[in-house]
């Protein structure tokens, strides 16, 4: 009886907070150029929102919102975006990871193209850090088996 009441408080608070945590992580990522923040910090906060979902509710709900297959694809997608931006400057006869050559692609001058190149690679870093943190947490907590409980009460 008391455990049901505890669950109601935690579940309602998490249900309200999780979208705001995700918006805050995007805010921290986008403002990485003008205030403290960036890719790593935003990725950790976004991972914290999914971990809160797995801790406050059961594993079924976290699986329904972020499937394991999508999570594994996100792990590799971030590194691909980072290295892809580095290779993109090869096409315009520049050095590797030389963002000034991206001015041939984007309609800006070479100094501003470095600004946009940094934003692109920070996106890759955020996606990878988020996916790997959620994946490591779920693997360690379930010891690899990922057994899901049968649906006991219809919360979603």
């Amino acid at each position, binding site marked *: 009886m008391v455990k049901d009441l505890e669950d109601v408080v935690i579940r309602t608070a998490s249900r309200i907070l999780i979208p705001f945590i995700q918006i805050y992580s995007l805010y921290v990522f986008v403002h990485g150029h*003008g*205030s*403290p923040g960036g890719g*790593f910090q935003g990725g950790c906060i976004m991972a914290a929102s999914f971990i809160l979902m797995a801790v406050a509710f059961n594993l079924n709900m976290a699986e329904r919102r972020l499937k394991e297959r999508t999570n594994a694809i996100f792990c590799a997608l971030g590194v691909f975006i980072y290295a892809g931006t580095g290779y993109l400057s090869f096409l315009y006869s520049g050095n590797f990871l030389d963002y000034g050559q991206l001015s041939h692609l984007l309609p800006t001058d070479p100094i501003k193209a470095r600004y946009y190149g940094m934003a692109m690679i920070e996106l890759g870093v955020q996606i990878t*850090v988020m996916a790997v*943190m959620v994946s*490591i947490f779920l*693997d*360690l907590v379930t*010891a*690899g088996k990922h057994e899901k409980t049968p649906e006991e009460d219809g919360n979603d």
Partner: protein
Amino acid sequence: MTDFILSKYNYWIYVILIMIGFYGMMAKNNLMKKLIGMTIFQWSIILFYISIGSKKGGTVPIIDPSLHPAIRAVDYINPLPHVLMLTAIVVGVATTGIALSLLILIYRKYGTVEEDEILEALKK
């Protein structure tokens, strides 16, 4: 004397943290406690590097765009240790994750995480 203590006490605090982590890694019997000692050691090194980069009278290294040509480097603290330690923090997280998963495998195989019981089971 007070000047000597006030200018060096941050290094002493981090040396004490290093000693605590080092003792925990060597002297404890439980594998999980050894792992916690290694984690304390790692984070104290990161804190030590960050404390090197501070400057008296300096502020956060975000340049005010309104004073564009007259930027003096003595007004801002050193950004290099912060950058290098971001990488070190992520490497520490990766190491801790893999070490914990190895502990799970050891527990599955031997049924215990005490070091002396594992060594006895290995001798047989």
